[in-house]
């Protein structure tokens, strides 16, 4: 009796395994996927993104990239966006297919079948399988990080190639480089002693930037001394006593959507007990900014504001808002609107 049961069970197991192996094999036969192409660029991950011809349709799940595509004059190629892509207003008519670049749900994207999907670095943290699946279905994937100044120009150039808008891309790059040179020239004669001490606060109280972070690199770029430069982690939460001790000359704070309005936030910081005795507050050198002016095509605006706040004497004649206006009108054909800094 025992023997027959064992034989029976083994037989069932073997059949089951064989059956599942057969089924899996049948289903596993790969799809055609992407084939080689004439156009190739390398994205943030070093992956070769290839297209046979400039993209005719694209889905953008990164707000910075959506802007960039419109600036390149290719806005009508967009057939799907993420929920954060709300500028320029023309894009609001396009269907929302994902919340953000993180773990985008694939079914709708597959059904829309764009030539190209562009995403920011959150896409990577969702897992590599997503890229694999899309490429299997014949959709190229390009990932980059427009909030990192070092990648902006590369990304613009790559987009120029991918969309067949190389000329416009060069135009944007020249625009950006003009202001980069401007800043560098004016800061060239700066001595260590002239550099003011700056405390940058991200969206949480006492959360600041240190070596290894984008914010720190920006501070160095505009010739400032970051009071928290040598902290052990890139985004440390520091103690108020440290800030008091360091006595920063300028305080810059990032404002997110969930923060109160600019004037109210400004009052809050000016009135914060620990900051009251700092040079920055005493001289009223407290500035707020919306991080959108630091990313992608708008990043000259952001850096100009920081440079001007930190070295007002060197940038007296520069009006960053005018630059911003120019971007609106020249690249998007829109009236400038919105408040991005305070005061």
């Amino acid at each position, binding site marked *: 009796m025992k023997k027959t049961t064992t034989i029976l069970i083994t037989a069932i197991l073997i059949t089951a395994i064989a059956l599942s192996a057969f089924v*899996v094999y049948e289903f596993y036969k790969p799809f055609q996927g992407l084939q080689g192409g004439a156009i190739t660029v390398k994205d943030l991950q070093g992956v070769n993104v290839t297209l046979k011809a400039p993209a005719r349709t694209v889905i953008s799940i990164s707000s910075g990239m959506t802007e960039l595509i419109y600036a390149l004059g290719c806005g009508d190629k967009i057939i799907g966006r993420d929920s954060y892509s709300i500028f320029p207003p023309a894009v609001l008519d396009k269907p929302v297919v994902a919340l953000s670049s993180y773990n985008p749900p694939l*079914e709708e994207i*597959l059904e829309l*079948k764009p030539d190209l999907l562009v995403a920011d670095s959150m896409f990577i*943290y*969702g897992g590599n399988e997503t890229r694999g699946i899309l490429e299997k*279905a014949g959709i190229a994937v390009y990932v980059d990080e427009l909030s990192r100044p070092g990648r902006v120009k590369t990304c613009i150039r790559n987009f120029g190639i991918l969309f067949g808008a190389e000329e416009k891309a060069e135009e944007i790059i020249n625009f950006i480089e003009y202001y980069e040179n401007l800043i560098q020239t004016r800061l060239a004669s700066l001595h260590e002693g002239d550099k003011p001490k700056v405390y940058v606060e991200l969206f949480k109280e006492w959360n600041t930037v240190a070596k290894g972070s984008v914010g720190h690199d920006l501070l160095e770029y505009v010739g400032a001394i970051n009071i928290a430069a040598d902290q052990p982690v890139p985004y440390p939460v520091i103690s108020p006593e440290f800030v008091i001790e360091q006595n920063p000359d300028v305080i810059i704070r990032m404002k997110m959507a969930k923060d109160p309005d600019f004037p109210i936030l400004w009052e809050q910081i000016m009135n914060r007990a620990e900051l009251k005795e700092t040079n920055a507050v005493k001289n009223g050198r407290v500035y707020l900014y919306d991080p959108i002016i630091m990313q992608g095509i708008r990043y000259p605006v952001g850096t100009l504001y920081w440079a001007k706040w930190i070295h007002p004497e060197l940038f007296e004649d520069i009006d960053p808002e005018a630059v911003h206006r120019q971007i609106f009108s020249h690249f998007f054909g829109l009236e400038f609107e919105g408040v991005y800094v305070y005061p």
Partner: protein
Amino acid sequence: MRLNNRRDSRNSYIESKGKKLFGIFCISLVLLVTAVISVSLGAASPGFVEAVQVIFSKILPFLGIDPGSKITQFIILELRLPRILLAIIAGAGLAASGATMQGVLRNPLVSSYILGISAAAGFGAALAIALGIGVIGGVGWYLIIVNAFIFSWLAMVMVYGIARLRGVTTETIILAGVAIGYLFSALLSLIQYVAPEYEAVRAVVFWLMGGLNHATWESIMILFPIIILAIVLMVLQAWNINVMSMGEEVAMSLGVTPKRVLTITMVLETLATASIISFTGVIGFICLISPHIARMLIGSDHRFLIPCSSLIGACLLLCSDTVGRLLLQPTEIPVGIVTSLLGVPFFLYILISRRRRIWS
């Protein structure tokens, strides 16, 4: 008269056994139906008819069924089907581990994460993500899986090592497991604080919530045999687990060595749970709830309980994932959140209903 009575007790038992097998069969049907429904639902247009067409055109190619457009095929075969299979196999594995550990540790509140595995796996994954080990480079995702897997085993080895100091018994294992769990939780929080990239921190948080969107046929091919093997071996231990749940002294008097059973089940449990976590992140409650439901339906005989629990776990996870997929389009609610929300009414129900005390 006496003769009749003797036959009666044996016959009633055989009858109850038959009922249990029938129950398992019914639940298998429920699972099948759920799977069919799930494959027919999704954000894109392919529905029931298209799904059936695609699947049958693959299984029975000689019938010449038209599979529909390439995209329809792709969505059904590359997106939905792997995901459904992953939900089934992961749910089954977690539920089986939960039932096994509850039995062997004589505690119905034990989950398959009792050995601190979830915290350790989370830490391993976080370590890989946060140190940016090859993530930007593109190869890194597999490293995250491997790391999570390695650290899960590390946790088990540590728990076993600590338990050995005082003798491998139920109490020492539970206590050691709690301690190791806390250790890795703390280390995980440390990693999140130190992580060089902001996105890395958020990614770790998301990974910990548990998600089935990385289902590919490759992951199925790796996971399927491992989990089936683990579950079968657990069921083979079922008799010993039954005996263990009566107490270690009684177990020894019946010829069962508790230390040996504990070791074997710990290894099997870690194998199943670690493999699953590596692919799906931490999905909670399935391992806790499924054995309870199964016990209410089918009793505590682990020869039936473990398979029944597996099936129920598969159903629960599949339902949770489908709900998570469809509730708030276009976004997906991570399945770990849905299962946690499931847990609340379940435990309230146990608290309130006094119908039969599930344990003493």
